[in-house]
């Protein structure tokens, strides 16, 4: 178990290295720092001095990968790659490219807490509601409830999340004045701001999740142990809730686990629509402001969270199903 864990972590680090290299090449080789300087300063006439000043302020004037002019180890460390890419491993994100040059590490820390406040309740409710809905459909298999339930699912998953948000905001905030349209406050006040995004996010994913879980349950229902349980004379609810539900936990875990990274990263669309200052809206602000330092850091943070999540899921398998042994 420990052996497996260490090996996974090692592989994760290797993947992270690759991610780092890919993002660095994407951001610094496809376009030179000069191009970025020109874009960031803006305007038609950008002088060479302005570009140089912009680059020096942000440390982009050094050589990209290898500094031939420096001494000893500085040949490798006195480069943009070392400053901006390798230092990410020490969780040193540096400052953003914009004029305010905020500390990215600090921003990420404060914003992740806010993202978690939205994402944790959402994650838990999402799994509970979707599984409950799917169980309902499976319990009434081959009946109008099942049929129209699936039809509703298909209809719901054909509607873009953006429509749910716009209509939901319009109805609940503008027409009924139940919750504020957008914004955020800390403490218990936050609940008022979080209710609507949580409900809408639940609805927007219920169609696809419900159908997915329904298929999982039906697959389990076709197995031998279900026939045995029925032959034993167990009632259908008992078969479904005691036997099938427990055995379906593994596929549920896999599918729910794939959302785990977003628990930390927040939802881009929901956060920015509802003005919640989490990581998701941070990314959108960075993209619209063309602040590449933030986007780079977020790619790194995102991958770290992804890799960690998958290790956690693997460990969770052993806890859900004692038959699974990690080696």
């Amino acid at each position, binding site marked *: 178990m420990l052996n497996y864990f260490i090996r996974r972590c090692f*592989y994760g680090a*290797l*993947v*992270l290295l*690759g*991610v780092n290299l*890919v*993002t660095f090449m*994407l*951001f610094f080789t*496809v*376009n030179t720092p000069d*191009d*970025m300087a*020109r*874009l960031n300063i803006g305007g038609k006439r950008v002088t060479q001095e302005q570009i140089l000043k912009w680059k020096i302020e942000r440390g982009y004037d050094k050589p990209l990968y290898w500094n031939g002019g420096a001494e000893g180890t500085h040949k490798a460390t006195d480069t943009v790659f070392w400053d901006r890419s390798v230092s990410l491993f020490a969780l040193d994100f540096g400052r953003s490219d914009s004029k305010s040059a905020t500390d990215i590490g600090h921003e990420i820390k404060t914003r992740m807490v806010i993202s978690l406040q939205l994402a944790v309740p959402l994650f838990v409710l999402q799994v509970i509601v979707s599984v409950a809905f799917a169980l309902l*459909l499976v319990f009434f298999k*081959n*009946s*109008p409830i*099942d*049929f129209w*339930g*699936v039809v509703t699912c*298909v*209809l719901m*998953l*054909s*509607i*873009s*999340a*953006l*429509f749910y948000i*716009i209509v939901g905001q*319009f109805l609940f905030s*503008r027409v009924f004045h139940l919750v504020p*349209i957008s914004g955020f406050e800390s403490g218990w006040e936050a609940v008022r701001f979080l209710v609507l995004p949580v409900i809408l996010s639940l609805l927007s994913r219920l169609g696809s999740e419900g159908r997915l879980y*329904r*298929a999982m349950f*039906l*697959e389990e229902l*076709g197995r031998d142990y279900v026939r045995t349980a029925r032959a034993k004379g167990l009632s259908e609810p008992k078969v479904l809730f005691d036997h099938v539900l427990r055995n379906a936990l593994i596929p549920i875990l896999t599918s729910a686990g794939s959302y785990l*990274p*977003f628990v930390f*990263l927040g939802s*881009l*669309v929901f956060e920015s629509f509802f003005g919640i200052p989490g990581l998701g809206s941070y*990314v*959108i602000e960075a*993209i*619209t402001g063309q602040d*590449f330092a933030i*986007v*780079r850091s*977020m*790619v790194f943070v*995102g*991958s770290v969270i*992804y890799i960690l999540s*998958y290790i956690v899921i693997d460990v969770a398998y052993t806890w859900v199903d004692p038959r699974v042994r990690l080696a």
Partner: protein
Amino acid sequence: MSFKIVVLWSDVVVIATLLMLIAYAWRIHGSPNLRATWMKVLRDRAAICASVVLVLFFAVAVVDSLHFRRVLSQAAGASADQAQAYGTRTESLLDVLLARLVAGRETSYSAPLAMRGFTKDSVDVNGQIERTYPRLKYGGEMLSDDTQWRGDVTRMALVGVGIGALVAMLAASVIALAVARKNRLRFGEAAHRLLQGRTDLPWRAVVVTVLAVCMVFGPLLALAQHYHVFGTDRTGNDVFYQALKSIRTAFVIGTLSTIATLPLAVGLGIVSGYLRGWVDEVVQYLYTLLSSIPNVLLIAACVLMMQVFIDTHPDLFETGAERSDVRLFLLCVILGLTGWATLCRLLRAETMKLSQLEYVQAATAFGVRTGRIMVRHIFPNVVHLIIITTVLDFSALILYEAVLSYVGVGVDPAMNSFGGMINLARTEMSRDPLVWWSFAAAFAFMVTLVLAANLFADGVRDAFDPRARAFRPRLRPTALT
């Protein structure tokens, strides 16, 4: 009127898709096995209705993909041998068909079917300046006063319904004729069977779909002759026209992005699954790496870099349309290059399973070369997975485009797309009085397209993957098997 044909990158894609579909249809025709499977798809009532809608949408996309630029009339005094000058506007065949909608641009918002503007303005009435709702330039221009509006709209709508009904009747008789020829029946007998739903394929459902489509589009097109059926947006552009133009963008994204995933996903998936060893390790590392970067972030990073490239090389593109088209094309390529991991993983697993089967072992024993085994023996047996994934991804990508446009890394803002329409609608929905029609139009078109794509995809999956068929919901319990 002479013109120069312009072939944009995405036009090539749409036309190539059309040709590929025709070629595939030809192949289906020739292979009894494939024909049986696709007949299964068509026997699915939801799938065949969805395909009617999809064909219609695709036709709009194809018509919108034939681009040209008009020749500008020569300036007086210009020498005859001077190079021909072309207009900067790149038009498509659809623009010509809807020329009235393009030309009838208003100044600002107007409600659906309105004959007056949405906001008050200072208008010169008989020499006096008055604050009133100004008459629209195009919407109801031939009406002399407001009382005629109701009668005119009703009349046009009825004409539309009539023409729609006629077209639907025509389609129904063509289908009945086809049924009659195939089953060697008299026309009356065939029509009777058709109406009772006793045909081999669910033709009655098709007729109902065609009727519904005609009932919706007949009045819409009839009214569009004199009104803005879905109103106009902030700069006075017709919303109905924008929605029709967005269809092409959606189709290009849905098809090109999946096509772009195929070379990497299929190639690497089969090679790594068959060869195993270090090749497998490398491929696994690659897709783990790719899938460990959150998708939106990776796409955003790529699109931002592409944007910088396009901005710093303005001389590469002759017209604005070319620039936004290259952006669309590259966006799809990026979606493809970042999205191959799932299909690759699927194909790798399937190849591993297949490579253990007797027929592959037999081929190896006969000394067939490795490359040939992969192409001739493995590939044809994973094609069904590729088809299922392609059709399932199509609708997901259309939905994804809307989100990407919202994030700011979608298609060019100058290009019509559902994402762009929703994005604008967002500010309109918070206006007072409410401007709802752009939003409603985008919603109606997008849901219809995505729903049709989803239903068709479900039909395809059920036909190609027998296991999935067991999960179909049924209204009546079936006999235990």
